[in-house]
């Protein structure tokens, strides 16, 4: 046992440290890359373009993009103030609120869908109140956005909170000395300084919302054009014909890659 130990230490000292980094990294990268490569290879068959550009595929794609973008906007609009409060203010229920924010991330999506249903469903605890306002949530596109927001917005709030908390207190004090009011402080100092964290949080939220499936199928249901997002179309297509699922998966991967590249450019610009 000891000899093995000494061998390992000597291996490191002789400068082969680089392999300690490269080997595990390669294995993890292979886990990501191999399935995706297989997807592109296996999906290239005659039916590909028929499936990829079918009415159903385009409908699902459009719905996915619209709902995930809406979710991201909701997360930013409502999450930024929350993250700011959690980062810069001190108040009694703070640790409880932080727990509630982190919980949806840990919950399995099907549980998320279930709790949304029993809370806001037609017979849900708050469902009757909603129906008084003439609002019935399940089976609507709004329900898709709500389900996605439930699971994805916490990611934005976490990232934004870290970003706001990282700003040096002295800058805040300096701004006060210069005569800035609360809004000017936020707008001209805090927001730009936390920009990177906000952007990466938004990207996380958007990608999580795009891939959301479990909560949506339970709370919003499945109907083409209204609630059938791309992940759902792929899951159900898988049971009909593998070719459909593969084609739709390729479409989703390509669209995701394009949007990730686009947001990456935004990140670079922001940094410069």
């Amino acid at each position: 046992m000891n000899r093995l130990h000494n061998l390992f230490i000597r291996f490191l000292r002789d400068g082969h440290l680089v392999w300690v980094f490269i080997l595990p990294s390669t294995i993890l990268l292979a886990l990501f890359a191999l399935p995706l490569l297989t997807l592109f290879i296996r999906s290239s068959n005659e039916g590909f373009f028929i499936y990829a550009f079918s009415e159903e595929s385009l409908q699902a794609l459009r719905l996915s993009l619209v709902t995930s973008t809406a979710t991201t906007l909701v997360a930013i609009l409502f999450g930024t103030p929350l993250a700011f409060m959690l980062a810069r203010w001190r108040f009694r229920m703070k640790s409880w609120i932080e727990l509630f924010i982190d919980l949806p991330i840990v919950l399995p999506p099907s549980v998320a869908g279930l709790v949304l249903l029993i809370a806001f469903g037609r017979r849900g605890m708050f469902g009757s109140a909603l129906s008084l306002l003439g609002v019935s949530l399940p089976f609507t596109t709004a329900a898709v956005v709500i389900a996605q927001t439930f699971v994805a917005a916490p990611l934005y709030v976490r990232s934004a909170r870290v970003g706001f908390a990282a700003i040096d207190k002295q800058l805040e004090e300096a701004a006060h000395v210069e005569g800035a009011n609360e809004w000017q402080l936020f707008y001209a100092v805090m927001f730009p300084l936390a920009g990177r964290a906000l952007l990466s949080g938004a990207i996380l939220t958007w990608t999580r919302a795009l891939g959301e499936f479990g909560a949506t199928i339970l709370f919003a249901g499945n109907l083409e054009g209204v609630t059938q997002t791309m992940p759902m179309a792929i899951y159900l297509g898988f049971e009909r014909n593998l070719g459909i699922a593969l084609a739709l998966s390729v479409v989703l991967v390509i669209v995701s890659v394009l949007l990730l590249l686009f947001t990456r450019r935004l990140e670079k610009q922001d940094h410069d």
Partner: protein
Amino acid sequence: MNYSLRPVLLLALLLVGCASSEVSSARTLHVFAAASLTDAFTELGEEFEAANPGVRVAFNFAGSQALRTQIEEGAPADVFASANKTEIDLLVASAHVTPDMPQVFLSNRLVVILTENNPAALENLEDLAKPGIKLVFAAEEVPVGEYTCQALDRMNRHFGRDFKDKVLANVVSKEDNVRQVVAKIQLGEADAGIVYTSDAAAAPELPAIEIPPEFNIVAEYPIAILSRSANPELANVFIAYVLSEQGQAVLQKWGFASPD
């Protein structure tokens, strides 16, 4: 670095030991069964395990189309009980089931279930076309969804050309298996859904509208051993049990009918 590799290796050996001992002590039979068979087959499984000590029956309940896909992609299964012949035929075509193996072991019919207290005041089949009500069906790939379409086609000939279209316009969600339909109705999310009589029997609190025989379809459920089964003798014993008087009694208790 003053750590020792010994405890790590010990832990690894323990885990491997645990895993291998599990495999040798119990024989596991993997049964893939349609979602509508959930309650009935769970009970059959318990009785089978009691009658055959040392045997464990592991069930996988889902829409028959989902199970067929999993089998095609290599999921380990010994027995497949499908809610329609289509899925079994597909497996015969892809050589996962030998052609003369499938046997029909029960029949089932469709029924309309309504949500508790029936707020939409639905009384007969024609009410399904009432504008503004919410219906939940299974997706067409699911056996019960396909049967629903066939039943609606039959109703069309009686109730008028656009009856089926009007009904389909009321559908707000197409579920992945029949139990999801039942769940949505039980939760009160939709006004009505079309499921099997066996599912209605398992949820007696829900009011129902009968579908008369001239519109109804007879769903025949085939069961078959899979050609790549790791336990063919055990699988055959299980299938024989399902077809036996005892097995059929359990099935009928849960609302299924004997094969015609």
